[in-house]
């Protein structure tokens, strides 16, 4: 036989060592970083942490109730998906960050390479931002291939994880050449700055948060959608308000779309056997609106009996016995309907975007950083927060304080898997007090009128971070040792 008889390169995929040789390939290198690796996190865990633990949602669903009860252990499979999915994002981002310059330098324009690397670094930063807020100290991995032979890898101190995030986002802001209009759906330089502002806000670097958010606002690259409800219509994906969002498809292939609708929707909305309404809007959230009629966001977030939605399946009326998880309501936000109305999809894989950051967030970061003394004037803070309120149909505030922004964020981003992170960046005592007093109960509708089964959960400081998955600590016991510094200086 000839020599090449025994040479069998892959016939249905690319050899990774021989790719990234054209500008098109380099530009496409980051596409998948906006969707598939995020699938398990967004579909299964993000809302458990963001809304169940924080108390804006509630459930009896056996897999997820532990988030509501603060009974999560390292054995919890759903929590484990946060760990694996976010690290999958990091692993895939690292592959791009390391492989693209190696393969493309000298062949593809430098700016194209740096833009791709910038996008990958921004997405890696976002994954680390979630990880550090969920788990605290975590291992920083820059090149996964270097760790293949190592069985003991330490975790890194929280300060260094944040420094790593900030360096990634700064690189992204400085190198990405895209704008919202030149590359819809991709992270632009201003998008990276907006995320950086949010990281600084979390770190209480109010001045940096103020400067960056002000810079993003002044760029005029983004604006609010006129109508809050339009934000959650699939056709409006990558609208003017969308700063960073995950980009799913309606291909119908598992994990190429997101499954949030499967968990949020009432039965018979999706066209499949999903629509588990595994989470309902908590009684606390229902109570937090200033006015159910006046605040447009209520109708766009929560399904009440007999509400009508023209955008779902060509017109959908909520059944009058609606009762997701004992709340006598159900969730509307991120519920988009059947594939034929939303450009494809299949069970547990729908094409609608998931917001990571939208312009309303930038405005509220801007307002909060001013209120917390990061610079700017009260007038600027008023302008920013009131833009958000006025869009919702609410009266403007004067001289807003931190609690106003907190309340506004809670309603504005309710069930967008966000509230938890606003809670835990308060002082620990405040966070504990808040979480311990959230109404997590249900309505017992076997009696007329329904009776409140009140439930509150006493939360302790150790519950503000989640445990590492036990399988990981068994595989890598170094996770249980003291975190080490990543940077030597």
């Amino acid at each position, binding site marked *: 036989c000839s020599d090449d008889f025994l040479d069998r390169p892959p016939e249905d995929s690319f050899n990774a060592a021989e790719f990234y040789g054209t500008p098109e390939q380099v530009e496409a290198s980051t596409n998948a970083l906006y969707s598939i690796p995020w699938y398990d996190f967004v579909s299964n865990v993000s809302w458990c942490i963001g809304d169940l633990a924080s108390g804006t949602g509630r459930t009896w669903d056996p897999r997820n109730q532990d988030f509501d009860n603060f009974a999560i252990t390292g054995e919890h499979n759903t929590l484990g998906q946060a760990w694996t999915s976010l690290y999958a994002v990091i692993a895939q981002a690292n592959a791009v960050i390391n492989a693209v310059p190696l393969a493309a330098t000298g062949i593809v324009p430098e700016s194209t390479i740096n833009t791709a690397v910038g996008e990958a670094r921004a997405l890696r930063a976002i994954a680390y931002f979630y990880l550090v807020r969920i788990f605290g100290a975590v291992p920083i991995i820059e090149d996964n291939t270097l760790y293949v032979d190592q069985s003991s890898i330490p975790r890194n101190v929280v300060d260094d994880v944040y420094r790593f995030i900030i360096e990634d986002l700064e690189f992204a802001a400085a190198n990405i050449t895209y704008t919202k209009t030149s590359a819809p759906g991709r992270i632009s330089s201003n998008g990276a700055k907006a995320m950086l502002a949010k990281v600084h806000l979390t770190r209480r670097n109010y001045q940096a948060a103020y400067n960056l958010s002000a810079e993003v606002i002044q760029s005029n690259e983004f604006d609010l959608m006129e109508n809050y409800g339009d934000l959650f219509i699939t056709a409006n994906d990558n609208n003017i308000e969308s700063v960073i969002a995950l980009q799913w498809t309606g291909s119908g292939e598992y994990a190429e779309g997101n499954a949030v609708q499967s968990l949020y929707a009432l039965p018979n909305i999706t066209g499949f056997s999903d629509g588990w*309404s595994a989470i309902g809007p908590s009684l606390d959230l229902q109570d937090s609106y200033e006015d159910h009629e006046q605040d447009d966001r209520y109708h766009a977030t929560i399904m009440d009996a007999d509400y009508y939605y023209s955008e779902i399946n060509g017109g959908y009326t909520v059944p009058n016995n609606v009762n997701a998880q004992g709340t006598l309501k159900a969730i509307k936000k991120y519920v988009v309907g059947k594939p034929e109305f939303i450009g494809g999809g299949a069970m547990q894989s729908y094409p609608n975007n998931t917001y990571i950051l939208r312009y309303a967030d930038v405005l509220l970061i801007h307002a909060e950083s001013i209120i917390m003394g990061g610079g700017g004037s009260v007038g600027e803070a008023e302008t920013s927060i009131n833009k958000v309120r006025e869009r919702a149909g609410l009266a403007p505030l004067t001289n807003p304080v931190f609690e106003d922004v907190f309340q506004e964020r809670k309603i504005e981003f309710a069930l967008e898997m966000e509230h938890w992170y606003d809670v835990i960046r308060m002082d620990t005592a405040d966070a504990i007090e808040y979480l311990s007093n959230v109404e997590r109960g249900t309505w017992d509708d076997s009696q007329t009128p329904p009776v409140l089964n009140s439930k509150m959960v006493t939360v302790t400081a150790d519950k503000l971070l989640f445990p590492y998955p036990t399988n990981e600590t068994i595989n890598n016991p170094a996770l249980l040792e003291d975190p080490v510094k990543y940077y030597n200086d």
Partner: protein
Amino acid sequence: QNVSVKGTVTDATGVALPGVNIVEKGTSNGTSTDFDGNYQISVPPNATLVFSYVGFITRETPVSGKNMINITMEEDMQSLDEVVVIGYGTQLKENITGSVSSIKSEDLVNIPQVSVDQLMQGRAAGVSVTLNTGQPGSAVSVRVRGVGSIQGSSEPLYVIDGVPISGDSRNIGTSGRSIASSSNLGDDGAGSTGVSPLASLNPNDIESVDILKDASATAIYGSRGANGVVIITTKKGKKSKGTLTYNTYVGVQQPTKMLDVLDLPGYAILQNEMNEIFDLNEQVEFLRPELLGPGTNWQQEIFKTAYLQNHQLSFSGGNDGTSYYLSTGYTDQQGTVIGSGFDRISLRLNVDSKVTDRIKVGANLTASRTNEELILSGNSRGIVSLALRNNPAIAVYNPDGSYAGPTTPTEISLAVPNPIAEIENTSNNLRRSRLFGNLYAEFKLFDGLTYRTEFGGDFGYNKNDRFQKSYSYGAITIESNRLSKRREDTDFWVIKNLLTYNKLFGDKHDVTFLVGHEAQESAWNGVVSTGVGFISNDIPTLNLSDTDGDVNDEYSGSTALESYLSRLIYSYDNRYSVTASIRADGSSKFDEGNKWGYFPSISASWKISNEAFMEDFTAVQNIKLYGGYGEVGNQNISNFAYGSTLNAVSTGLGTGFLIANFPNPNLQWEESRQTNLGLDFSLFDSRLNTTIEVYRKLNSKFLYRLALTDFIVGGTGPGSIQPPWVNLGEMENKGIDVTLNYNTTPSDNFSWNSTLTFSHYKNKMLELVDGLTIFGQTNLDDTNQILTITEVGQPIGMYYGYKVEGMFRTLEDLENAPIQFGQPVGDDSVVGRTWLGDLKFKDVNGDGVVDGDDRTVIGNPHPDFTFGWQNNFNYKGFSLGIFIQGSYGNDVFNAIGRSLTATNLTYRNQLASVLDYWSVDNPNASHPRYTNNATNNILISDRYVEDGSYLRIQNVRLGYQLPSKVFEKSGISKINIYGSIQNLYTFTKYSGYDPEVGSLNQDALLMGVDNGRYPTPRTFTLGLDVQF
């Protein structure tokens, strides 16, 4: 002066034999018989005639001046018995130096198993066969002498008439995909998806099965011989006169056992108690359980009596140097779980012909088509599991004929799907069409030197159509129907060129020398198209789908192997025999520099009883001592595993790319070094034949997909990167195989033949890198669970979890016990507190608390020994066969039992035993308190590990051969009728359906895990054999 001699040559039954060679002894003067067995030859009156014919004892007759010599030739049963197929040749059994077990066709006939791998169970020492599921047509796990590999396939190589076929149903070495899809999500499927690679072969066509067990025997197969080689030889025509045989059987199959799950009143009591304890709203319909009827018996709904039929028509014969065997068969086996079934049509043609005295050609060809209706099993969402867990309060159908199902929001989120609706609304059909066989030509070059060239092929076309209809049950509507069609081509070919030199020197030195070259290629290509949104369920074809939702997938690849092989067999005076072989394999699976592997072996035997000094020693006969050493390899991994690939995916930003795996250019062959020592002897005038073999297999440099921490690879979910394949570790299998065979003295009236096989092996992991531990994981009740651990010093795949020390029954006990999982003591019905009635887990490491570190080995899936015992009794025309088979000392992990005793969720059925649960009023209960949700009581523990030992009466068969005078004028030569019962009874302590669990999808890390396995049925058959 020559005389003319003529006559007729017949066999023992008086049938004329055409083509018999007749030679004047010591000359080249010869002739052969014509079609009617007549011959005529001119010879000197004092000559001696030599009559020879393949398969018959050669006879010599002096002419002594006669003009008419009629000869009756006897079939050479002895020589048939003693020739063993050893791969690229045959050898006399008495000269065999390696470890080979042979199964003859008479042991395999008329057993109602559709596939030959199932038939090997219990027949050969050292060969363990377990049925992974009872689903018709599904794959089995065959382990030759223990477990050889961790993640590569541990299945043996099958060689059918010279064509190698992998026993790996997971197709690890080729496409990496099982050819059947059985899951709702993705195509790789959960649960048992393995369909048997041997299902295409009709067992009735098999003449013999020879199993090469040790490396000195398998080294000639080199890189594919590490897990043993099963050589299957199909029937050939040998009789002079053509025979026509018709075999048939019909049978009924029934489930052997039902589990004792709760009926409706019991279920209502369970729900009421749980609702109260969990502080849930009560279910008003259950307020008076005693008034309720029995409810739905879901097991009765999914199981049925299933029919089985088999027909085979075969023709065989030979003349003028040509022999043929032609057969056609049809098998139809319904499944005992509704919605499953298997049928097969097969054709076989075997021809051998002498073209000239020096040239022989032949072909063995099989064409077959199998159809399988598949259902999901061996999974929490499998049909068996759903039936056991579904609550008896729900009917199968509503009065209006629609499917009954959950209606309230809580019910919807907790109840399991209606299994009948799942079966009736999902069709999953697999049709496999296959043509395989070989063609050869053999040339006698000169004195003992033969050149053989052979082309073999295995060409398959697989169609898998899975249609999920739209339907509704209860308040749930599944509006979108979905059709997935898979079309897969597999092409395999092999070309062999072999030179064999065989000569007997000086009557004592028998030399056989073989050199050969072989090249083989396997290629595959599959297209999967999925369409959704069909207007109706009536016509599921892709052109009728809503094109927006169409998904296309394609996979394609090839592998190649090139080999040089050589073997020398030298026997001296039927006393000493030595075999040495070497094979070099070049494989496309490895990178430059690692492609070639070399596999040598040497073995020898000493037939002590043929020594002169043994002449007077007659108490023990046929004593043979033999032993050998060999090195073989395993390369059964995916192609290009040494490199890294990018998978194209579709994203909201267009086509994207994900890194699929980490590369490892240093990847090389898995090695197995094996030593075998055997002793054969006979007692009681050769009536009791004994074979005892001991062996040691040392497998090293395992091909293993490194289990890296999740934060390096991103877990196993979407977007994760597959860890690299590496070579690591060393594993040992030591064992003993014993075969005892006893025959009564032949007599006309009564005979008894009994064969007992006994196998024992001990598996031990000797080395893994860096103290690595390997966990075997699977999905139980939608949660990924670690079930087994593999670590140095222990056997592979040991059950791993917590030890239970009973239940907390007193406050004192509770307060003095180590803290369990950081939970405070206290009565909290929701979660998070340890209380009376909870399981008391053992603080294994003695650190004063019970936590993840207290997980330990809790069971062993490896048996102490397995055995098979075949008995055949013959009395006049009657024959009785009894086959008993079993396993001792192995544990089973009862995962479905765990699910059925979890008592943590409402709306799910449980075993009746859970009603004896702990409460203040029932402190001596056998079952823990009911706790909501993620209770620690259902952690993986020894509570679910059960003794899986069993003894099974596998087959009892009573036959009667009609006296020939009854039909002698009708042209029929033989009529045989029989009845048999397969899987008659199983003695076991195991509480599930069946202790024979097998490995989930042949995974060595998931042995004996019963996760709603499709139970093996009991089969009653009636059969008839007619020969013309």
